[in-house]
């Protein structure tokens, strides 16, 4: 796969939808292209996060630690970005990622991602918008959950 195909994949990531192509190319270029065979860990809950992952192909299981051991809570699939929270706000990884099948991933290091945001404010805006959307959804989920809890 070359830069061009990566850009095609990036375009499908909602976070980067509004960003023009040359910047995506730059993002792709400064990212590291890594492969993960099925079962390999991308990151572990609790460790310091120094990069975000953009899944080009394949899928990863999201696991969280519970008293009974690791428990799968979700799966992330192609064209999604994960781990960006850790690089934006310096918190330890909130979950473990394990490759569910053979994966192709673009890894953006924290430093470079921040540099990119600084360099191109429109990417920052897009990130902000996505995060705000997510927050809105989480808030609504939370409200639903509360309502459900009090109702039940």
């Amino acid at each position, binding site marked *: 796969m070359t830069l061009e195909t990566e850009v095609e994949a990036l375009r499908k990531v909602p976070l980067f939808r509004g960003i023009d192509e040359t910047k995506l190319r730059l993002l792709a270029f400064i990212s590291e*292209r890594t492969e993960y065979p099925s079962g390999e860990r991308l990151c572990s809950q609790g460790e310091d996060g120094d990069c975000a992952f953009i899944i080009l192909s394949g899928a990863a299981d999201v696991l969280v630690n519970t008293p009974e051991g690791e428990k799968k809570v979700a799966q992330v699939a192609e064209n999604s970005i994960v781990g960006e929270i850790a690089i934006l706000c310096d918190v330890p990884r909130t979950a473990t990622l394990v490759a569910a099948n053979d994966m192709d991933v673009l890894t953006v290091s924290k430093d470079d991602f921040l540099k990119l945001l600084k360099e191109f404010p429109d990417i920052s805006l897009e990130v902000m918008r996505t995060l705000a959307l997510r927050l809105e959804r989480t808030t609504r989920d939370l409200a639903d959950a509360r309502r459900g809890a009090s109702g039940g």
Partner: protein
Amino acid sequence: MEKSLFRFIWKYSSRQQIFIILVTVLTYPVVYFLLELPKLIVNDAVQGDNFPRDVFGFDFDQIPYLVLLCLTFLGLVVVSNGLKFYLNVYKGRLGERMLRRLRFELFQRVLRFRLPHFRKVSSGEIIPMITSEVEDVGGYIGEAFALPAYQGGMLVVQIGFIFMQDPLLGLAAISSYPIQGYVIPLLQRKVILLSRKRVKNVRVIADKVGESITGVAEIHANDAAAWHSADISDRLYENFKIRYEIFNRKFLIKFLNNFMNQLTPFFFYLIGGYLVIQGNLSIGALLAVIAAYKDLAGPWKLLLSFYQMTADVSVKYQTVVENFDPSDIYDTDRLTSDDTVTLDGDVKFDRVSFSGGAAGQEVMDISLTVPAGGDCAIVGPDGSGRSEVLQLAAGLVSASSGKVFIGDHDLDKLTDATLGREIAYVGGAVHVWTGTIRDNLYYGLRHRPLAPPERVGDDLKNYKRRVNEAKQTKNPIYDLAADWSDLKAAGVGSDEELDQKALELLETVSLDNDIYRLGLQSRFDPSMNDTFAEKILEVRKSLAGRIASDAKLGGLVELWDRDSFNASASLAENLFFAVPSDPEISMDEVPDLEEVKKFLAETGFDEKLQQIGLKIAETMLELFANVSGDSGLLGSYSFINQDDLPEFERIVRIAKSGQQRPGLTDADRSKLTGLAFKLVPARHRLGVMTDDLRDEIIVARKRFLESVVKNGDSFVAFDPDVYLPPLTIEDNLLFGRARVDRRDARRRIDEVIRTIVEETGLRRAIIFAGFSYHVGVSGSRLSAGQRRKIALVRGLLKNAKITILDDIATGLTEDDKILRDGLRQFLSEKTFLYGTSNAEIAAEFSQSIVLDQGRISDKG
């Protein structure tokens, strides 16, 4: 030291000076005959009659007589010029020898300075004194006596001739001398003062430049560049002013001289003309006098300029030497004596006081005893006198009153040979020497040359000459090429045991892992140690085996394989399947190597690579066009850094326009090729690598191996069975590349390498390879902590009776505590003084002495 230059010259070269004068006098008759012969040839041989002539009892006809005279003339020309040549070489050699003696004496004096003296002098000032300032002295010494003797003699002869013609004219000839003799020294004195000022000013400039270099990080961190620039600029202006004044005066002196010299003929014509008219002097005599006077001007001028040079050089000499004569300088004996005594017994301070010349650097009335073989902590914050007490105990500084004893020996009376071998001192500010780690570790054992190397043939001849020269100039005859490491002092029997002991100590101070890592990164020459290379190859094989059997591991590396493309390696490595034998050759220089150029042209790869380079350059320009230079993105990811960007912009523009003129230059093409060489396909996914290109590269690779690698020694091919000297030990172990498209591949592979290395017992050998790591200027390639530990091991390796550590491993961390326990254990048989500012740490020691403001406040 001799205060005046002439005393110095006479003391050390009087015999040579007299010899020079004698040879100079010898040239007088030769020169005289040389001037007389042409007259004789013309008047007697050519125009004469009544032949034959009788010469030494032989009769000569006219023609043979002419031939005889001409041959004599030729002989004299050869003799006179030969003498001159001999004399010049002799003078030059004498000057150089004296200069060497002077410089060495100055350096030795620096070594003899007491430590507190270095608070008053700076290296920036001392260095130019020893190097450039005395340079002129060398050229002068050969002439110091000969020139005044020779030219003075000439002058006297000429003046005598004029006086013989007519005393009055003689008086006229020398009439200007008294005035010149009075005025010129007067002016010259001012010039001397100015030169002194200039020399001192230049020293300050040198010092400030040196300081700026040492403190350059501070300059940038504080934005003080403007201040320093202004400071230096000011000094340079000062220099200009002084120089300008010197010029003015120097040329004034010249002007006066010339004027006076041309004034004298005025008297000749007036007085001489009068005398001729009066009939008291023949016209022939007057003309002869005027001719003689012309000959007078030469020597006189030379004498005057010699006088000026003497004044100049003397002042330089004095200005230098006065800095090397502090009243409290150590005896030369202390430095050079080989007398050693054994320092057994207690360390005893008897009412010792010392002042370092500033507040917080003094100790008062200290009395203490540390029993032989005991350990003692000296406790006190910086400025309490702790460091001074420890330096006193090490004999590095001398008490101003009271005495420091070890056993029965007063430290002040001992030589360096005793102090530096019987006592190991490691202070808070350690110095690591430029050189290898090995040099630094064994530095404390290099006191005197022990076993001289065997020399034969030319080597022996050169060595004898070196010793002879050293003796002539009172330089030491220590042999630098000898083996200096004092194994006996370290308590070991062989170099291998010494390495082993150093390794144990490195483990004690837990520096072994650092050195191991440096060892992995270092290169070594397999011709020095075959077995080591073989072992590395064994590890390489077992690693390859493990990689082959373990699929998980196999996914992390791409090993070198002649028949497949390695996407994690650069294009150059893939194309050549070899590396330049000289590891100093960078990727940018490779395209310019003759054999590479030829190979690329033959295979047609030059065009292809340039196209790839062009494509890379274009992509880089496009990607980074809108990125500001200071974001740092460009530096870490692009092939091109910010400074080269405009250059590549130009290249791309020219290439795109397709113009023949101005087309791409060869340098531009090399640049593009270099860019392509650096491409690592798995990392830089620019889409320039096609499957066809991969195949072509693999085909071309074989041709390169056949044509270039086999027939020359500028490249070394990747061969699984051969150790590759240009690669680091680590790269040799792996024989491949960690995959760049696998997360943490490098780290995970390193771990595997480490376990295999440990299993096979290669770790020690790699640490020993790390001993050859070059630490950079003053250890700049090591961290501050590593430098301290190296200095510590250096001190411990000396195996000294008394070990003194100041401010070493004084942390409260577990690591430091273990280190201190280890040190106490290692030094359990020896006297051990340990300086710290922390009372808690001091409690670990069996005895402690607390210092406060230079006095003992508590003993425990």
